[in-house]
């Protein structure tokens, strides 16, 4: 089975490492240039933030994302990992680290192995050197292979590759070739992200200036191709953008999509923790200043309630192929009035967008392609 069992109380720990050697056109993640002084201040900050939190809850998963965690030199990776371990009651069950192919080095790999990192996520994006160049990526196909071999040789047996599609200038044949090249390597997990035009990115500006175009029809074609090709290659889809060999789904992400709990550390990191949902301020200095004063600077603070959690559990749950067990949902959020859902489910089923069997609600393939539309409707239906 593709879905490892996770308890409702599971806690994930996300660490945002906000450094990139270069800002990609399409990217909206918070990142800064990797200056030595900033890295040191950042590492101090993580330790202090964890002191403030005072974790007593057991942590099931760790995820280092970015930014580019793999950009940190081996000794910093080591320091960051040891800081975490020192603050946790015990070692995690899954520990993922995002690595950029251009920054993979033997001493870093060794540091990660020693820490007990279990899972590597590589930002490949494409194997096509032309496209990589156009995206302004710092790596090429050769470096991907080299990084891949290095991880495998050192014994990492759970590796994900991030790929992107519907890129400007990418043909369907280009994309199929990338998918097959990825599958030929035989990673345990593949994430395929349709290019999203994020506000406040250089690409967004180009879009609004008409320098690049969006073609929703083509995006739909790309999606369908992707799902077919990966299924044929033995990678089962378990979420809109995620595919894995049996038992290799990312536990950390599953935990989030099921609306459990997670703690985000570092600037811009998001949390759903101790009854609240919030994001740390997306600014290194402000984040540090807050932490030093003992009053973290946070944005979008929301007090959690059952209705909110139930709606989000549905919205994000339906993005997963297993769907949502409604019986379990009703039990988990006993205070929520799910009655408006029935008529909605019926009409959506009539349109062939959802399936409802054995108490479990799932999107059909067509429905999955319309998951945002479905999500917006769900918000309307449940939060009136």
């Amino acid at each position: 089975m593709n879905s490892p069992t996770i308890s409702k109380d599971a806690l994930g720990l996300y660490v945002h490492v906000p450094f990139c050697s270069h800002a990609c056109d399409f990217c909206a993640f918070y990142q800064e240039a990797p200056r030595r002084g900033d890295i040191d201040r950042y590492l101090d900050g993580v330790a202090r933030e964890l002191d403030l939190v005072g974790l007593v809850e057991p942590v099931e998963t760790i995820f280092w994302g970015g930014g580019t965690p793999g950009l940190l030199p081996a000794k910093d990776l080591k320091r960051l990992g040891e800081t975490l371990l020192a603050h946790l009651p015990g070692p995690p069950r899954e520990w993922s680290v995002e690595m950029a192919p251009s920054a993979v080095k033997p001493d870093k790999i060794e540091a990660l192995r020693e820490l007990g990192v279990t899972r590597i996520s590589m930002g490949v994006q494409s194997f096509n050197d032309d496209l990589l160049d156009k995206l302004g990526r710092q790596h090429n196909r050769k470096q991907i292979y080299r990084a891949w071999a290095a991880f495998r040789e050192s014994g990492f047996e759970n590796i994900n590759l991030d790929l992107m599609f519907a890129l400007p200038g990418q043909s369907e044949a280009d994309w199929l070739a990338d998918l097959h090249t990825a599958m030929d390597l035989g990673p345990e997990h593949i994430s395929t992200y349709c290019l999203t035009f994020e506000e406040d990115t250089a690409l967004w500006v180009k879009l609004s200036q008409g320098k690049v175009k969006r073609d929703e029809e083509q995006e739909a074609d790309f999606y369908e191709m992707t799902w077919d090709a990966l299924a044929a290659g033995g990678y089962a889809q378990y979420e809109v953008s995620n595919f894995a060999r049996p038992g290799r789904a990312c536990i950390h992400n599953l935990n989030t999509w099921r609306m459990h709990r997670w703690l985000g550390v570092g600037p811009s990191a998001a949390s759903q923790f101790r009854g609240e949902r919030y994001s740390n301020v997306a600014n290194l200095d402000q984040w540090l200043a807050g932490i030093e004063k003992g009053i973290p600077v946070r944005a979008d603070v929301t007090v959690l309630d059952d209705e909110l959690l139930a709606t989000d559990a549905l919205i994000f749950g339906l993005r997963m192929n297993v769907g949502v067990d409604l019986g379990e949902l009703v039990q988990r959020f006993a205070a929520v009035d799910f009655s408006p859902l029935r008529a909605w489910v019926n009409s959506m089923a009539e349109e062939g967008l959802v399936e409802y069997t054995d108490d479990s609600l799932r999107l059909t393939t067509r429905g999955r392609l319309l998951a945002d539309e479905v999500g917006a409707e769900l918000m309307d239906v449940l939060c009136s």
Partner: protein
Amino acid sequence: MKTSHIRNFCIIAHVDHGKTTLSDRLLESTQTVQRREMKDQMLDSMDLERERGITIKSHPVSMLYKHEGEDYLLNLIDTPGHVDFSYEVSRSLAACEGALLLIDAAQGVEAQTVANAHLAVEQGLEIIPVINKIDLPGAHPELIEQQIEDILAIPREEAIRASGKSGIGIDDILDAVVNRLPSPRWSDNPDTRVLVFDNVYDTYKGVICYVRVFSGCVKPGDEVVMMSTGQKAIVKEVGRFSPKMLPEKELGAGRTGYIVTSIKDLADIKIGDTITHAATPAGEMLPGYKEVRPMVFSGVYPIDTSDYNKLKASMAKLQINDAALVYQSESSVALGFGFRCGFLGLLHMEIIQERLRREYDLDIISTYPSVIYRVTKTDGEVLDVDNPQFLPDPSEIDTIEEPMIRATIHTPTESIGDMLALISEKRGICDHTETVDDTRVMLMCDLPLNEILIDFNDRLKSITRGYGSMDYELAGYKVSDLVKLDILVNAEPVDAFSSIVHRDKAEFKGRALCERLKDILPRQMFKIAIQAAVYGRIIARESLSAMRKDVTAKCYGGDISRKRKLLDKQKEGKKRMKQIGKVAIPQDAFVKILKTST
């Protein structure tokens, strides 16, 4: 000031021929305003008007001018620039003894200019032709002089060559105003007669009337009466525009300026009315008064039905400033409660709708515009129908008549074939053509009003590459074979899209509307049919395939709030659409459908 030293005049010009620039020049040259004050003072019109390059109303200005050692008072009265406001134009003309007829030296005479010049001559105005923009390299004044002789029958020697931009000819113009225009007429009538040629609402003062005193005198404290309605009022303030309001002790015969009375409601003072003294009323009104009636009707509905009261209040506020706007409540199956509004024309309609959106922050939709049809039922009853919804069942209809217009169209000779084709496509009949000059022809034709409502002017402009122009007046009713065309979206009739059309054109128009809607409507989560029907019979059909993809790859770890915000936005976007059955129709669909060529 003696009437012999007063001149009242206006400027007749086609859009962009330089009226604003020339007016500013005259004000500057007579030192009515200093150059640097010009912008703030002169351009105090609504944003919307400025954007569209049309001035609906601007107030008259009085200038003091010294000529051969004597002081003259020159009153420049503005005329609105668009056919929708032709009655206001005629009233402004009525306030003058003369007109500057401004013609762009590169563009030449336009249809509307000719029509307005004729109007002016009919009203007994003296015309001074001014060939403007003489500084342009493309100017050919001789050609224009020829046109002036040929079309307007004014001797070419009378034309003044000028440039509002460089200042050429400005003194000649001012001298001509003094020497060639007659002094104020009808000033020896024993009774006081004052023409209201425009009015505006002011929050503090109430209604400010723009007036021309023909005979007698008005001053604060006078009790006056509006001759068309018999409504009495006390005069509070009189004065002139210089160009700011400048109160005076009195306004005597021949003067142009403003009057503020105790009347607070714009609708109580009709444009074109005559004001006289209550104690010694004039025997006869000044000529030309007419009740203005709206010609175009459309339903205006709030997208969010709970905005009805806000819409109602906003309509009332708009009407305070615009007496030409009429409305009454109505309801529609698909759209809920709203108002049926009457407008002077399509431009007036667009302006009002745009103001509701911008100034009153209302999300509204408006129905397909309609004219007033006269329906005679089989039982002899005669109905005025301004809403396709109220067209009786065909079995009860004996005849339907539609309003006609008499149009004057100017077109370059090479476009005449296409123009005639357009006219006949619009069910028009051209009965008279006249050569204007080597390159231009004037066509006179009868057209149904409903055919020129939507896109006639745009088509005319595109056929003639901008050189053609049109002017028209209403010309009675005519029996016609008309039917109601309905549009169904996902099998639900959307009455906002219904219209009354000629039977022969129903299918063509139905198909065009369906095709256009297919482009305009966003795809929905399921496939929908768009159909056109005449009395229940489907005559055209399109289908809008289902949306295929609306999903975002989610690579941002645990940032649920971010995703939620995006979905919220999406949800809000839907709220601003009109839900008809299962289908969400965006606001702009109701506007865009109007731009459908039929």
